[in-house]
Every structure is written in C-alpha cells, then in structure tokens.
C-alpha cells in the first residue's frame, strides 16, 4: 500500500514549497491527542530521517515515520474548498470514527 496526494493537493504543496524557498517535501504523521485519540501531523520537511518511509506522489516527496505509517496506510491527501475555507483533507481508510470536527480520529 502507499500514501498518495491528489493531483490538486500536490499542486498546492509544490506551490507552497516554491514560495517557502526550502524543504525537501511533506511530512505526514499521527500522534495521540485530541478528543478522539489521534491527530494528524502535516508539516513541511527539511530533512529526511533514516527510518522514514518515503513515497513520491505527483512529484512531491512524502515522508512518514514508521510508527505513524500503519495508521495512515492507504491515505490520500486531498485539497478541498468548503465555502471560503480551503485546506488539506486526509482521506484515510483506517479511520473508524472521528470527532465532530474531524481534527482527531480513532482507528
């Protein structure tokens, strides 16, 4: 399996990376916190760590630490617009239920 970016998400990430002027890719992860147990981490990556699991999707390098990977496997990162709001969305098949706002989730 793998973690992928939608084409639209990749385009936005690439754009942000150019404007930011540095970084090698995107780091995804999960950590325990929030109202439903787990929360996503979505950050720019400046360095790759030795045990990172790497993917490449539409030209964007995605780095995931091995502990987070089982919770994210099969996820597609999408970019969406809801009214005036816009941003990234994790389409994660592992999620059983999420809190009302979706910022944290359970597997």
């Amino acid at each position, binding site marked *: 399996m793998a973690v992928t970016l939608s084409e639209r998400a990749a385009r936005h990430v690439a754009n942000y990376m150019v404007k930011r002027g540095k970084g090698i890719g995107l780091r995804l992860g999960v950590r325990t*916190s929030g109202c439903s147990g787990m929360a996503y981490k*979505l950050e720019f990556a400046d360095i790759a760590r030795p045990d990172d699991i790497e993917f490449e999707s539409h030209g964007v390098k995605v780095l995931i630490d091995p502990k987070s990977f089982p919770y994210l496997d099969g996820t597609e990162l999408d970019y969406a617009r809801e009214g*005036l*709001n816009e941003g990234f969305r994790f389409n994660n098949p592992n999620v059983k239920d999420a809190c009302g*706002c979706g*910022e944290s989730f359970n597997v």
Partner: protein
Amino acid sequence: MALLQIAEPGESSAPHQHRLAVGIDLGTTNSLVATVRSGLAVVLSDELGRPLLPSVVRYMPDGQTEVGYDAQTRQALDPRNTIVSVKRFMGRGLADISNREGMPYRFDDAPGMLRLHTVAGLKSPVEVSAEILRNLRLRAEASLGGALLGAVITVPAYFDDAQRQATKDAARLAGLPVLRLLNEPTAAAIAYGLDNAAEGVYAVYDLGGGTFDISILRLSRGIFEVLATGGDSALGGDDFDHRIFCWILETAGLKPLSVEDARVLLTRAREAKEYLTFHGVAPISARLDSGEIVDLTLSTEIFSEITQTLVAKTMQPVKKALRDAGLSVADVKGVVMVGGATRMPQVQRAVGDFFRQDPLNNLDPDKVVAIGAAKQANLLAGNGAAGDDWLLLDVIPLSLGIETMGGLVEKIIPRNATIPTARAQEFTTFRDGQTALAVHVVQGERELVGDCRSLARFELRGIPPMVAGAARVRVTFQVDADGLLAVTAREKTSGVEASIVVKPSYGLSDDEIAEMLKDSLQHVRDDALQRALREAQIDAERLLEAVRAALVGDGELLSADERARIDADIGKLQAATRGDNRRQIVLAMDDLEADTKDFAARRMDKSIRRAFAGRRISELDSDTTIAHTGEAT
C-alpha cells in the same frame, strides 16, 4: 472534516488549538484581510472571489447596514447615509475636517470626535469603522474555520494617539482582539524586506485611491525604524481618473453633463487608466444620455502628459522626507511601491528616475500592506518558525513633551523615537511653598506651547511645602507598542504621584502634522530667539518674585536710599520684561542683582539668627507653576 494547513517542521498545533490570526489593512478607500496559510501570506477573498472590501458603509432605516460593494453601488442614490473614507474622520473633531462643505454628510460636533447623522441615528467614525472590521472578521472566520485569536491592524505612520485609540476602539466594537497596531509602511517593508532578507534604508511610496504617503524606513538586523514620513492627504489615483475625465470633456467638446453622464465618463476614465498599465493605447467609448457619442483613443503619451503635474506633486514630499531623515537618494537601497495607483507606468518611471533604481513591485501593490500585517499577526500569535522572532520598532510621529514656565515646551520624547519607549525627566517647583504642579502634555515640534497640540492636562497635588527648586518631580512618559501614551508625575521626597493615560479628545490632522513639521523647520531660528527671550523673561520673573518676597519679609533691613534704588531697578526690569529685547532684560537683571547683593547678605545673617531661635518661616501662597531643573534623568 476539518481542513488542515501545512505547518513548519515540529510546529503542528494540537487539535482545536489553532491560533488563527489575521492582518487587516483598514484603508481610506479599500480594506483587506490576510492571513498566513501553510506558511504563505494570502489575502482572503469574499464569496465572489473579490479581495478588496470598499471602505463604504451604508445605514438603512431599520438599523441594518450594507458594507463594501453593495454600499458603494448605492452611494449615489443615498449619499447622506452612505459613509465613504471614514478613516479621515477617525479621532477627529469637526474643526479638524477642512473641506466638509463638499461632503454630503450632516455632521454633529460631539466633544472629542465628530458624529454623523444617518437615517439609523447618530454614528461615530469608530462605529462606522467597526462595521468594516466586523465584515472582515466574519470573512476571516468563514475562511479559516474558527474564531480569531486576534488581528494586526495597520494605520498610517503619522496617525496620532487619538486616531490610533479610535482604531483600537473600532476593533473592540467589532469583536476583534487587537494584537497590535502596525504602521502601514512598516507592514509593506515586512511584506518585502523579510521575504527577501534585505537590510538597509528603504523608501515606501504609497499612492492610494485618495491619499499619498511617503515613508523612509531603516531595516537592520531585523529591526524596523521609521526615519521620516510625509505625504499629501488629498492626492491619489482618483485625481488621475479626473484628469482623464477632463481630457475627455475637452477633446470631445462636451457641454456640462448630467450627474449620470459624469459618472459614466468617470468610470470610463478609470477603465482607460487601468487599461494603459498594460497597453499603449486605450479606447474610450460611451453613449451619453444627452445622445452624444464619445469615441476617443487615449495614448500612454497623452496620459503621461496630462498627469505629469500630479506625478511631480508626489515628489515634493519625497524630497522633504529624505531631508527630514538626513539622507540623500544615494542612501536609499530600495523603493517599495504600495497602492493600486503605483501600477501606472509613468509613476513607476518617475519614482525609478528619482531614486535612480527600479522600484520593488513584484508584490501586488493593493495587497502588500495586508500581507505584511498578516505575517506580523502570525508571529504575534506564536505561529512563527524558530528564528523568526524579529523585533519590530515603530516611531512617534511628533515629539511629546510638557509645558514649562512661560509657555515653553520641554520635549521629553523626541520625534521619530522608536516605540515602545519610556523616558523621564526631572522638574521642580517655581515658587516657595508650592504644593501642586500642573502637567500639560503637548505634541509637536515647536518651542512654544501655543504652536503645539495640547493632548492632556493633570495636576500633581500634595507636594510638601518646600523652597522653590527643592521639590524633585519626576515626569515619566511611556508609549506602548501601539503608540499610546501614559504620563506619570511623582514627587520623589514625598512619593506623591499622579498619572494620566492620554486618550486625547482631539488629534492632529495629516495636514496639520505636515504643516507643523514644515513650520518647525521654517521657524527653527525664530523659535530659538523666542525661546531665549522667554527664558530671560522667566529668569527675570523669578528674580522679581524673590526680591519682592524678600522686601515683604525683610524690608526693614534696608535704608530708604537703598530701598529707592531697588524699587527703581524693579521698575526698570518689569518694563524690560514686558518688551521683547532680551539684552535689555539681562542688563536690568544685572542691575537689580548688583543692588540687592548687600541686602541678600544681611537677610542671610538674619535668617541664621532666626534659625537658631527656632522660628518657622510661614508658608507662602502656593501655585502650580512648573520649573525646569535642567537635568534629564
């Protein structure tokens, strides 16, 4: 499902703990709101994708309001209840508004700040601005998906305390916590300077719809300092539209127009102006109500020619600001262009020619201030990446000081001092037994109180009776990061204290500031002479006061002859003091001092005898005159 933004490495926030912060450019003509999203500062658009919000508020009979484009389109139909350019009224009294005959509003002269009569009742400029800010807050909350931690709101660098306070009040009324007020040119410099990490002296040339501002900034080691500001509060892109409008009338040979036709042609003029930014010629065609058809072509050359004087007019304040900062063109490392009107090629060219370099224009000039404010807001909200913790210094637009004896101004914080700042100076009493001190806070560059703006007055009471000059009153001026002033006076031996937070009832208009600065430059020599005269007069009065008190107390120590001579000297000195010849005053003082020398010695002997006898000197009448100790602390 919530939509996420990309964070800096290690900076992911916990769920439900996003620190949403925005930057707001609250403009005279248009306002914008921006935020930093996934590390990138972006302007937030409305539902129709429009980034600008016209700074127009229309009040309706049911108390509802329309803000922005809706209000703007109805402006012509309902001019009295449609408030445009409210920024010009912020923190202003009726007397501060110069051309109000030309405005459709019904003003009310409320104490402190004027009010506007609308169909929905009496409205203050603060309330009108709050409507604009509320609209931007709702837009930001809808765009960011949550309540805002706060906003950085930009103001012109020359905004005084009253105008800054009014802006803060408007934000509070709009339910918007203010993280900080930020000077507009500083925000523009942040938008450029930090992205490009360039240090040095920069000029910020801001030609908006109806106002022109020039600021000279210094960026060094992450610190911004405003060295000088200047401008013209009645010059902007609208004037260029008007020149084209006049050219159309003249070229097409049109008779006086109906209001409707004039509006159509003004719109065509603006469109032509914008078209010429990217094209060599602009077609102008319109069918008027009068049946006449306008079909003209405006070339870049003609446009440049008919607007040449306008462009030249912006260069005068530029030269003056440079002079104010003590710099020459060669010192300026970069020029930042702000405001939609700077898109015009002839403006770019003129600025480039003057500074002998291409101006920085790779950011959208309409958005650059909001973008800088958003970056600052992001930082203040604690969202910045490590190493981004730069300082930000703004300056005081006009010197702050207090009135001392004889209507002179003692400057405590000089113009262009960086804020936040606190400075103190020591003063003392003028008369024996004086138990109170009146502190009069003024703002301006001139030496005499009458030529400066009065900001506030308060009294320090309960000073224990002492001989003149013995009290030690420390007056502290503190200006916070938003440019608001707090003044404290404290008598050191007794510890009595009084203070005031300056929320001045009146502020200074941009024109007044410009005028006062001009005045101070022109009057430097006059003022120095005036000051010397005043100081001599004060010294004379002090001497007269002392001699009179001595004569009352110890007059019997003098022979009739001596007394007559002293009385004559007093008469001469009084006469000289009323005149404006400083030398005469000084000479008369010398005479009086010489003739009272023996008298003083005799009094001294007497008071020593009296001191040994354990008698007390009765308290003299107290007044509140403040004297200058001549020492800064």
